[in-house]
């Protein structure tokens, strides 16, 4: 199967560039940008997760920030309990906190997956605008849940006393943390690539294209969409766990509804229903936000119309623009 195609070459080049980034930045005297790149990569993971439901599954989720938040809070809460030595649950089976990434991160993924499962269970019964709005409503519920969660800082948020510990790696070292995040991003991309090409992915794409037909040829599409939604939530939760570690801080602002909107922007900006699209979108979105906000306080007045222009004239995303010439469009 591994043929040398332009795509494979591009992927190899991209990975090489990602790996070489920290030394390059060091060389040009801008090592700080490793942190920026890390943050972009984390949001890229979340955007890829969203693209799985949005681009491949055609489910416009307006609540994905909630899953990032749940993942981040899981790590934050476990870390708090580990730091002050208190128990998370008391009673017959007392459970304490932990700093260990090997425990905390899978739990973050699991928690987000569970939340996504239950939200999906209800939301996927609806269609179209109703789906958009009900996912937004659920995300708002979770947002307010964390706002009122006074034990864990409520609206003020929760400081991570320590970053997670992972196999003796120094996660405080920007470069180490960067490589870890890049490794996870690539792993997520590979997993998603396999997933969309496998039977499961075919069902998801089929349901996007023509759900009625999928039912008629014998697929219980609801089930598959629910699993897809859950997987997507789980990956977003992983991004949340990473973000909590990078920021060393978790707060409800992570779950604000505009965050869900920004994630959608990233996916569409880069190109829906492609795997690299969301990555490109995250890079472009966050850099643009950064550059514009350094340019002027009123950067939103540029950013807003820019968004409209993208939708009107480049709604296949940046990747789509690049590919228009070559006619190589996988969507």
């Amino acid at each position, binding site marked *: *199967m591994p043929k040398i195609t332009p795509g494979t070459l591009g992927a190899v080049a991209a990975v090489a560039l990602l790996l070489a980034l920290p030394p390059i930045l060091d060389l040009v005297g801008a090592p700080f940008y490793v942190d920026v790149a890390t943050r972009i990569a984390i949001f890229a993971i979340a955007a890829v997760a969203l693209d799985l439901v949005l681009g491949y599954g055609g489910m416009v989720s307006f609540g994905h920030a909630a899953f990032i938040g749940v993942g981040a809070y899981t790590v934050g809460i476990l870390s708090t309990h580990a730091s002050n030595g208190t128990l998370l649950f008391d009673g017959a089976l007392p459970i304490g906190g932990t700093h260990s990434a090997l425990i905390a991160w899978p739990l973050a993924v699991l928690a987000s997956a569970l939340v996504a499962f239950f939200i999906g269970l209800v939301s996927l019964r609806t269609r179209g605008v109703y789906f958009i709005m009900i996912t937004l409503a659920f995300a708002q519920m979770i947002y307010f849940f964390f706002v009122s969660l006074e034990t864990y800082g409520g609206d003020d948020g929760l400081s991570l006393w320590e970053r997670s510990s992972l196999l003796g790696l120094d996660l405080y070292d920007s470069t180490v943390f960067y490589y870890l995040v890049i490794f996870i991003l690539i792993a997520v991309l590979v997993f998603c690539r396999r997933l969309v090409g496998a039977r499961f992915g075919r*069902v998801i*794409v089929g349901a996007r294209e023509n759900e*009625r037909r999928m039912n*008629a*040829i*014998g697929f219980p599409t609801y089930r598959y969409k629910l699993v897809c939604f859950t997987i997507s939530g789980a990956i977003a939760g992983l991004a949340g766990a990473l973000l909590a570690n990078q920021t060393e801080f978790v707060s409800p602002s992570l779950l604000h509804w505009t965050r869900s909107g920004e994630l959608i922007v990233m996916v569409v900006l880069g190109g829906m229903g492609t795997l690299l699209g969301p990555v490109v979108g995250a890079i472009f979105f966050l850099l643009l936000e950064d550059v514009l906000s350094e340019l002027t306080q009123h950067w939103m007045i540029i950013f807003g119309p820019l968004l409209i222009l993208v939708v009107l004239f480049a709604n296949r995303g940046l990747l789509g623009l690049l590919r228009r010439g070559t006619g190589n469009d996988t*969507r």
Partner: protein
Amino acid sequence: MNPSQPLLSVRGIVKRYGGLAASDGVDLDVATGEIHSIIGPNGAGKTTLVGQLSGEIRPDAGQILFDGRDITTVPTYRRSALGLARSFQVTSIFPRLTVLENVALAVQAHAGHSFVFWRPAAEEERLREPAREALARTGLERHASSIAATLAHGEQRRLEVAMAIATEPRLVLLDEPTAGMGPEETRQMVDLLHDLRRDTTILLVEHDMDVVFALSDRISVLVYGRVIATGSPEAIRANADVRDAYLGEEYADG
């Protein structure tokens, strides 16, 4: 299976929209191996009947039995698993997938569960082989790798049929398979259906009377939500009620 028992049996199904009964006690038996056609004027309730048979519409009353089993409340996707396949009146394919992928998806629905996350579906011969066979049978094999949306109308209609038969169903419900076709395309479709009858029972909802009378073993006439007559093509043609209600003017004009 009891040979004397009909494969599909509809007992008095009723479906009302507001005050209007789109199905007003429809009775219908389809025997194994036959081509059974349903005809009727516009507004007779054919679309509603097809919806109920495929499971997209739930009847208010009555029963649908498939191979003796009550499937009245069985969801669409499970009817397909039981061996009841269908095509759509308005072409319903996956326009952005290739022709082969379209059919392979239909095969996939019947080849075990699809919670497979790692192994590429494109490498599963178990899916592609039957799909290619179905394409060969419907004369579409040379289009296998074309994007479905690029096919001509008649070819898309045949792709519909290919998707329906790829799963080796026991009964195919074909909803106006020749809709919008020219004479040459219609002739190809008739040949295809002739060929299909060797392996499967066909329930045909069709407007084109030439097709109906050329193919059918039996015909049921639906008028105002009721079956007013069922019989061989000759019997139907001779039936005075049918002629009064419908056939006369339309067939004469046709």
